[in-house]
Every structure is written in C-alpha cells, then in structure tokens.
C-alpha cells in the first residue's frame, strides 16, 4: 500500500489514534492498513454500535471511523450517542450506502464527514487531515 506523509497530533507529535467500527472483519483490517500507512495507531475496534460507545469511553481516540449498516445498533445512532457525551469527538462515517439522506442524517447527528466505500486511501487521508484541522501535523518528506 502507498505510504503517506505521517499525520500526527500537533499537541504532542504522537500518532493519531483511531477507533474503527465496522461489522466486517475484512473492512476493519482494510481500514487498519490504511491508517497505518498514514502513520496512525489503532486504538480499538468494534463490530457494532453499542461496543463502539464502550470502546470510545475506554480508548478516547482522536478519530472514529464508523460504518452505518451494522447489527444491533447502527452507526448513525452510535455516532450521535458518542457526540452527545463527547462533543469534541470526531466521527467520520465510512459506508457503502452514500445517498444524500443518509449523509445529511449522519452530519446532523454529529458526524464530521462521510467517506463512501470502497474507500480510496488518498480520499480518506485528505478527510482525516480536514477533520483534524489545526490539531494535525503533517510530517515532511524527511519524516520530521
């Protein structure tokens, strides 16, 4: 997989920590490989919304990558509950279902951005930088 200039936290220079939420093991593994190529760190994983909320509390990640269609509790509801408790939470929805109503619902309920599957690493990379804003530091080519 293509390597990207590492995105780090500007406050301490540490790798950005991610919580990946998807009912597909394949999708989680795929996203984990991508965040590794961005210089990020996997803080936790969950296969549905309820576990995602618990994992958020436990790991306090910088970014949550959240699928929408999942068993038990769907991603939009889980995102809303996380953001209600933690308004600073940065949740990026990652789903194959990308119609307008779904995107608007996700954004209205607290998600910061939406990425449609199949996920292109270069698209996710740009979204991560955008969502982190000034809290992100992009290492230069020399790896600083």
């Amino acid at each position, binding site marked *: *997989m293509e390597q990207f200039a590492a995105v780090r936290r500007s406050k301490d220079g540490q790798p950005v920590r991610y919580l990946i939420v998807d*009912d*597909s*093991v*394949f*999708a989680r*593994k*795929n996203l984990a*490989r991508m965040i590794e190529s961005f210089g990020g760190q996997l803080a936790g994983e969950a296969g549905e919304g309820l576990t995602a909320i618990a994992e958020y509390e436990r790991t306090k990640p910088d970014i949550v990558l959240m699928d929408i*269609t*999942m*068993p038990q509790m769907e991603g939009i509801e889980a995102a809303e509950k996380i953001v209600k408790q933690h308004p600073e939470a940065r949740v990026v929805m990652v*789903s*194959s*279902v*990308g*119609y*307008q*109503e*779904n995107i608007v619902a996700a954004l209205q309920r607290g998600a910061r951005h939406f990425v*449609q*599957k*199949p996920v*292109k690493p270069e698209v996710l990379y740009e979204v991560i930088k955008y969502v982190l804003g000034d809290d992100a530091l992009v290492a230069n080519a020399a790896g600083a």
Partner: protein
Amino acid sequence: MKMELIQPFINAADAVLADGLKGPISIASLTMEEEAYRRKGVAALVWVTGDIEGRMVIDLDPETAVRVASQFAGEELPSSDVLVKETVCELANQVVGNAITSLNDQGFHFRTHPPVLHTSEHGSKGSEDTEALVICLETTSGDVYMNIALRYKQAFLQGHSAAAGRQAG
C-alpha cells in the same frame, strides 16, 4: 424485473470489482432464473427492504473466492481463512450499498441489511414477480455471479398509480 432496477447493480459491481481487482470487468452472461437458487461456492446475501424489496447474492466458486479475497486483502490468503468469506460478504455489502445509493438518488427509498453468509445449498425459489436475474461477471480472478431478485412493493406501486391518475385527471 425492470432493467432500471438492475442497471445500478451492474454499475456498482463493475466499479467495486474493478477498484478492488485492479483489472477489467465484463459481463459474460445474463440469464433469468425461476428455479430455486443453487449456491456455486462462497455466497453472501443482502436483503433490501422499502419501496423495492428483495435480495442480492454474490457467489464465487471456492478457488475464485480465495483469489478475489487475496487481491482485495493485498496478501495471499489460505482457502481456510475466515477472511475469504468475510471479503465476499463485504463485496456484497459494497455492491448493494453503491447500487442503493444510485437508486435512492433516483427517488426510491429503502434500506439494506447487513450481509449474511449464504450457507444452504439451495435458496428460495423465485416467483413470478421475484424471478431472479443471474449476471456472470468475468474478472481477472475468475467469474463472479450476482443473483438479483427484486420487486416493487405493492404500496409503492399503488402510490405511483394514484399519483399518475391525479396527473392524468
């Protein structure tokens, strides 16, 4: 089954497979099937509910499933690996999700359900209004079968007829 319902699935499968397999995709055959569905190998099923109801199955013979999953995973997977089945499920999820996105933007409203592994040898038999369309997609990793059985929900058709009647009146 109307072509307007099928085309988004073909487009979505083409886009998802071409992206994951990094190679050309072509339609090898397209057939209607009224007999009970017979699984070819590793198959994942996704239900759709709403204005349109039905299901879509993605089905690959075991060897093709391993090749496709390995290509998607970016590493060689053994045939026993659970990721092979997981990948086929995610493939079905992405194809249906992208097709539904396109249909939704055309005004149809529905939702998809999480993919499930189709383990029985036979599926339910298609009926007059849910006959299945089987599309064989030729890829560089082998043939991928898509079995689609969809129908308009009765309430949706009645709503459309009433709207058409009002317009005509």
